[in-house]
């Protein structure tokens, strides 16, 4: 599932997206076709855990691509949000996955599929 990025204001769009969806990945490309290795790895991990998420392709909109960096105070893509909370980028997602923390974190937040 992918939301198209055509906001009047990038900040408003980001705030609404992370409020409306439990798990949101701001990424380069779409989940079926990531356009960056770091985004691809993050998608693979979420898929592997069975987390349903919304992918937002920041390459569709320059305001969004820059806006998400300011919004999160985080200069790189991808960026993962769970229940409105910034979790991290691909390094953090990978570290948490490898240590088993990510699965527990997702379960706690009730976002693992049965």
């Amino acid at each position: 599932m992918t939301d198209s990025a055509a906001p009047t204001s990038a900040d408003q769009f980001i705030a609404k997206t992370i409020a409306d969806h439990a798990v949101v990945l701001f990424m380069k490309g779409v989940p079926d076709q990531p356009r960056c290795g770091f985004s691809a790895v993050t998608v693979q991990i979420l898929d592997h855990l069975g987390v349903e998420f919304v992918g937002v392709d920041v390459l569709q909109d320059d305001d969004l691509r820059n806006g998400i960096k300011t919004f999160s105070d985080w200069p790189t893509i991808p960026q993962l949000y769970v229940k409105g909370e910034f979790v991290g980028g691909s390094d953090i997602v990978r570290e948490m996955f490898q240590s088993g923390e990510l699965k527990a974190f997702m379960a706690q937040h009730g976002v693992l599929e049965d």
Partner: protein
Amino acid sequence: MHRDEKDLLMGTVAARMKAKLESRFSPELLEIVDDSDKHKGHSGSSEAGETHFSVTITSSVFLGVNRVGRQRLVMKALSEELAGPVHALTIKALAPNEE
């Protein structure tokens, strides 16, 4: 020894990153690896290299700071490089005695 122009250019970004990280974090351990070769032809890669790096850094500055906070500290210290030549940065930031 005569060095050609490419040799002289190579490593300048890494050297700048090293200097900034050393001055900001006084690290016990600092390793900067240029991964650019692995990303040839990808978006953001350049013939000159020095676009993709992995940084492993151990510093007491990270004591009591969570993962997001640690990465933010490192990325802030390297904000000029991230806004400029560096396209991708993989960061492992550890406090002393962490794996």
